């Protein structure tokens, strides 16, 4: 209860700050005029916004904007982002028309690479720039996108005051050389720290007479109980798995390595970069997973099924434990309000603080909109993107249209029933995407309230947030980047390592490889593939990051 009150307080606090133009960050560094203009109420932003005259252009201009359509949070209800009313309003206010270029779903990385190779760029490109081959610096050097430092200085007052002048955010979004190169999706949120949770079917757990598990030993008992029960969903066939997982996307089995204080990938410990699979404890973890597999707890299709099959298993009641984003309200809508809940991240010893190495960190994480070298009018593009960070843009992109998707209650934006209790039974994200990008991501400052609304519709979701707030995030590596020279070497090592790792990992779990017999071999092969050099390169990148 106490926790709950504290939570609400924090919530209210964040809220009041958010409503005065989310200025929780740049206060001390902005000059007076800037602060004054950015505190202008939303309603005044019709003809002028944060000191920027509207419309941004007198003659209509059309920009092409490359961005993948979100598969789960947009694709089910729309086919083009121009259908979003927030953007239509944005177009009306700024005079800038956007022609969206959406790659085919499932082909995003191929189409992006082909676009880069063909040198045929749209005006604005939304991408995870931290994962650009060779790093963002190479994207600038190769003349894919333009360096933004001067453009921001002269044409992006909102972005400058909110992001550039906040040292933490600035650090997360610049290159090692100090270049700015994109308008990121900025996540700045203490309300909901972890975005993902291990869910369990609460009804089945209660049937088994068990409490929510905390340690791996508790998990052993829980999974055994599910396995012994057999026909959990009562359809007469033994088609349930105590635990299901995916290889990419919802790779719960990999994440569980965190319980053994290691990780499936690179992580940091006392400022030193480590590669989880080289750890002794990684062997312990694999051994335990193999025990689960042998006992029949793990869905044997864990390394081959796709997201659709996985989601179907959850919705059809064929899985008891699985990983999901905190937006699991969409399952609750279908399956009942108490069908499932999030567990604490498991630990080995009761009372330990769980390590969580998977959610996104605060700040900019690489996702964002960059202006390409093909853009005819980079100044206007920068102004248009900057508008996203101003008060009007912030409200449009996060909350949508006032009176339709939200109303102001006591000076706070509150979603309408159409969004939170959708008559057609749509989840918050899907109801919201008709009006705004709040459920997804684009170049803007994500409002914590939107995230809370998305993740806090049902009591079980709010409880899950409560349970997963107290976590150790220190193992997570920030979005560090290799230099152009290092990146080729690094990419070659990592691509070979990953191919080897992904198949060995699956083999250790399904018993084709044995930890006692093969784990040393496995680590030797990783060494042979150059993992130590890769760790070294990551270490250099981390040091550069810390010195930004």
């Amino acid at each position: 209860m106490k926790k709950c009150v504290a939570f609400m307080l924090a919530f209210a606090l964040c809220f009041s700050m958010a409503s005065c133009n989310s200025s929780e960050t740049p206060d001390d560094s902005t000059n007076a005029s800037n602060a004054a203009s950015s505190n202008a109420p939303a309603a005044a932003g019709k003809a002028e916004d944060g000191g920027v005259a509207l419309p941004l252009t007198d003659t209509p201009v059309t920009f092409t904007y490359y961005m993948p359509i979100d598969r789960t949070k947009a694709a089910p209800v729309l086919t083009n982002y121009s259908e979003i009313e927030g953007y239509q309003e944005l177009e009306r206010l700024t005079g800038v028309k956007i022609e969206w270029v959406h790659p085919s779903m499932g082909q995003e990385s191929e189409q992006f690479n082909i676009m880069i190779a063909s040198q045929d760029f749209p005006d604005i490109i939304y991408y995870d720039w931290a994962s650009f081959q060779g790093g963002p610096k190479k994207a600038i050097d190769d003349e894919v996108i333009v360096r933004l430092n001067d453009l921001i200085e002269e044409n992006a007052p909102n972005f400058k005051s909110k992001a550039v002048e906040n040292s933490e955010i600035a650090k997360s979004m610049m290159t090692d050389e100090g270049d700015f190169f994109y308008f990121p999706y900025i996540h700045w949120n203490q309300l909901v720290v972890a975005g993902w949770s291990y869910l369990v079917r609460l009804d089945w757990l209660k049937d088994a007479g068990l409490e929510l598990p905390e340690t791996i030993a508790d998990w052993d008992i829980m999974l055994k109980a599910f396995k012994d029960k057999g026909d959990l969903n009562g359809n007469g066939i033994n088609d349930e798995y105590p635990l299901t997982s995916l290889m990419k996307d919802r790779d719960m089995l990999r994440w569980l390595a965190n319980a053994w204080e290691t990780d499936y990938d690179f992580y940091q410990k006392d400022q030193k970069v480590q590669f989880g699979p080289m750890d002794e404890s990684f062997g312990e973890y694999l051994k335990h997973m193999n025990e689960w597999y042998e006992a029949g707890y793990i869905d044997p299709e864990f390394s081959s099924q796709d997201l659709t099959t996985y989601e179907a298993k959850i919705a059809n009641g064929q899985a008891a434990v699985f990983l999901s984003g905190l937006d699991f309200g969409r399952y609750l809508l279908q399956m009942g309000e108490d069908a499932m809940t999030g567990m604490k991240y498991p630990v080995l010893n009761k009372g330990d603080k769980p390590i969580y190495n998977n959610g996104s960190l605060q700040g900019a994480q690489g996702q964002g909109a960059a202006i390409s070298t093909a853009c005819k009018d980079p100044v206007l593009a920068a102004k248009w993107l900057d508008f996203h960070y101003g008060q009007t843009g912030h409200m449009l992109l996060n909350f949508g249209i006032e009176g339709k998707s939200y109303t102001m209650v006591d000076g706070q934006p509150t979603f309408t029933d159409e969004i939170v209790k959708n008559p057609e039974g749509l989840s918050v994200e899907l109801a919201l995407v008709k009006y705004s990008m709040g459920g997804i991501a684009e170049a803007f400052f994500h409002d914590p309230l939107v995230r809370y609304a998305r993740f806090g519709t049902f009591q079980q979701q709010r409880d899950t947030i409560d349970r997963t707030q107290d976590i150790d995030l220190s193992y997570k590596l920030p979005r560090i980047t290799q230099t152009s020279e290092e990146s080729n070497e690094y990419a070659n090592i990592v691509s070979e390592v990953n191919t080897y790792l992904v198949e060995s990992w699956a083999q250790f779990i399904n018993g084709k490889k044995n930890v006692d017999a093969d784990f040393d071999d496995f680590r030797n092969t990783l060494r042979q593939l150059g993992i130590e050099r890769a760790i070294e390169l990551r270490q250099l990148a981390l040091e550069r990051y810390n010195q930004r």
Partner: protein
Amino acid sequence: MSGVEEVADGKKAGRFKKHMIRYIYLYLMIAPVIVYYLIFMYAPMFGLQIAFKDYRPSLGMLQSPFVGIKHFTAFFGSYYFERILKNTLLISFYDILFGFPAPIILALILNEQRNALFKRSVQTVTYLPHFVSTVIICGMMVDFLSLNGWVNAILSSLTGRAPTAFLQVPEWFRGIFVGSNIWQEVGWGSIIYLSALSAINEEYYEAARIDGASRWQQLRHITLPGILSTIVIMLIMRVGRVMNVSSEKVLLLYTPNTYETADVISTFVYRKGILESNYGYATAVGLFNSAVNFVLLISVNQLSRKVTDNSLW
């Protein structure tokens, strides 16, 4: 002196003109094919140079820095080189061993059928899968072979053993790959043999029957020799594609569990080139692939010319 040449040229030109007027429609008919080959087969060869370069899109092919055989040494030294080469060759080997004779056998069986309706319906049914896209074929395979698929359902009801996730077992991969290839292509592949069979003169069979040859003997001494040249030509062309294992199909069917038998050169090129945008490296691997194919094609052709008197050229 120059006058003589002019006259000769004029004659030649006149003859050329006549020739063109006479055959213009034939040339028009072949023109699209020539254009196709020029654009899609010869023009891209210009791009092969990036196999020796550190290709950067912004610099273009000509300006990218030259790195010599760096990509080739990297590939031959790669941890996966042996494995993907072995997998490629093995899959192709099995595909030739089982997949190559299958349409011949089907054609022979159909040829022996005297019931035209039956013959035609079998033909239609067997070549239908050829028109179904690979993506769908693979989707069907995944479905059929999954734990809840009908293959497992039948097997476990017959033998009572627990279902196997076939696509997760490395040992099964080649069988599934080659088997589904046969299923998809057997009918289509048999068409060319059926047409070769229909070209055999009926009189041979008549004479053989009068001499008292059994059907089996007719098959061995008339039918097979009759289509031998077609078989050899098809085999030479097939061997020329030994290193090309359909990347789409492997990509759609493999999982990390089956990499050890399923990862082939073409999927490696796909990962390197399209996913990691390491274009130079991927081109080098592709070039190596084509070079091996080329050498194989030439040598099989030579061999066949010596042994059977049949060859492509």
